[in-house]
């Protein structure tokens, strides 16, 4: 008797290859998320530095040292994110000097605010170039994304935790587009430019007041 169509074995569904047990055991989901956000922060920092630097020939004097500082800060910031927030334990009595030195370097690395330094260096590098509104606008969006990625990498939280910041960030990006648009139209010297400068100064004072911890 030949088996009917229902009895013949159909094409087997392709088995998904299982992850090796040692890999699954070693890489926890939290660690994977932290690695992904750290990598994203590093890439955004690199992209911001590169975007602010090009084209180098049109940059003003002093752009090379600023570029060097920006690259250094971005790289060390990425290393600091990769190093994480380890506890500074007591050194063992017979620790080799290389491990002792590594521990000191790591402590120093955690002490410096590399992300802030990167932001300042990148904006300074951008300012050394001539006026190019749309270019600066994209850089601003990239820097905001960089800061959010650094925050996620540091805290180990999921991107969904930033949902509360989304409306304000979107409104801010809208203002960024408006500012870029106004710059692209061109702002001749006059009372409008003066008003704008006054508003910027007031906003700067407000931001500084917010910086004072309460």
């Amino acid at each position, binding site marked *: 008797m030949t088996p009917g169509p229902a009895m013949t074995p159909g094409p087997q569904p392709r088995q998904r290859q299982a992850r090796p047990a040692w890999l699954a055991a070693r890489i926890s989901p*939290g660690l994977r998320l932290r690695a992904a956000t750290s990598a994203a922060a590093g890439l955004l920092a690199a992209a911001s530095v590169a975007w602010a630097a090009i084209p180098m020939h049109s940059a003003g004097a002093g752009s090379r040292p600023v570029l060097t500082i920006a690259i250094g800060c971005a790289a060390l910031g990425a290393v600091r994110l990769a190093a994480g*927030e380890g*506890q500074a334990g007591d050194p063992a*009595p*017979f620790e*080799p*000097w290389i491990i002792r030195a590594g521990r000191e370097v790591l402590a120093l690395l955690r002490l410096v*605010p590399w*992300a*802030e330094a990167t*932001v*300042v260096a990148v*904006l*300074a590098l951008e*300012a050394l170039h001539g*006026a190019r*509104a749309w270019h*600066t*606008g994209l*850089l*601003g969006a990239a*820097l*905001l994304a960089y*800061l959010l990625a*650094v*925050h996620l990498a*540091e*805290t*180990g939280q999921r991107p969904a*935790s*930033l949902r509360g*910041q989304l409306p*304000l*960030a979107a*409104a*801010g*990006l809208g*203002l*960024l*587009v*408006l*500012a*870029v648009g*106004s*710059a692209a139209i061109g*702002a001749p010297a006059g009372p409008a*430019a003066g008003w*704008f*400068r006054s508003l*910027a*100064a007031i*906003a*700067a004072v*407000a*931001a*500084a007041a*917010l*910086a004072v*911890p*309460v």
Partner: protein
Amino acid sequence: MMNEQAPVTAGEPLPVRVSWRLSRHGRRLITLALAGLLLAVVTRRPEFAGVAAPAVLLLAGWRRDRPQAIGLRVALSSASITEGEQASVIAEATGLAGHAGRLRLQPADFVTPAWPSVAGTVTADGTARYRLPFRAERWGRRPVGTAELILTDRLHLAEGRARAWIPQLACYPAPATLDRPVVLSALPSRLGEHPARAAGEGIEFAGVRAFVPGDRQRRVNWPATTRRGSLQLNTFSAERAQNVVLIVDASTDVGEPGASSLDLAVRAAAGIARCYLTARDRIGLVIYGGHPAWVSPATGRRQFHRMADLTLASPAAHGRAGALTRLPRAALPAGALVLVLSPLLQPALIEALRDLRERGCTMLIIDVLNTGPQRDAGGRRPLLLRGPGSRAAVVSPLAQRVWTMEQQAIRFSLRELGIPVVHWDGQQALDQPLAPYARRVMVVRR
């Protein structure tokens, strides 16, 4: 009353002050805002003000109605665990006012948290519950550390920290593996599980003898009776329990923390106690330190906990300790097997052991010395023995040789007195070094 670091334990949540400060994310946003606005003013380019705009708007969400104090209750999932086991810090927080929180453990020595921090689950009544597992790596009654609750607002701009002490944890030593106990040839007449030389009512077959009126008929050995032509009877060994006394040398502690001589001694003591108590023997403990402490031999599970509590309550006390011979008879009963767990570095203890042996005590020493004058990183200079936390010093190769020979001489002299000395490295099962003495009964020599 509000505390900066409250010793919070079980019961109702206690008010704990929260110290708020700008978060790192907030600081970075302020940097971006200030840098953008400054460049906009200096370079007169409005696009830089646009760069600052998202950061300024995010900072505008700064909340001032933050809770200055919260209710916090911290407890441990278990008050006592064994070395290497896992327990959890359980925290309950009330009055968070919608702020998200993460529990972090600032661990004390030899405590390893499973994760850097954990998020909590919020119940319907607004109470947030946190559970952070940790592992205790070394025995002792030790602090776990400080529980820190980190609160963040909706925009992650401010960070509030509330700290609370975690109750102490009793961490019992991990028992070494010992399946086969050392049994003496002469056992006191107390009912137990070890077959003795004397005939008795046990189940271990001892031999055959002629029938005597009054013997039980069910013990007649019919094959032997047929062979010999007269009634023969099976005899059995009596089953006795033995008294065992453990002497743990806490007067010296050398080696790496976690594998020091005292660590090994208490782990071995726990393993031996468990093995003998399983065999329903009576076991006691003497801690030889600054002030000798003891638990008289007894049997049962409660005795194990009594011994473990004595071990935790008697920290290492370096220096000259009191004489063992002054211990009461109840602590060191006659005819007991004395197992000594020591690195044999304290001359007073060695003298006391010699004295005990000369009084007819049957002893066995388990040597737990696993360190010695070590070489430095270059492998050239030997280093002095060191205790946990002490600094190393350099000794000459000649001094190292003299030290090694002295140690060998001490062990040789003890063996000559009839005290067996076995070495245990803390890695292998205790059965291995004790095998020569556990394979057959240990003959008692007075």
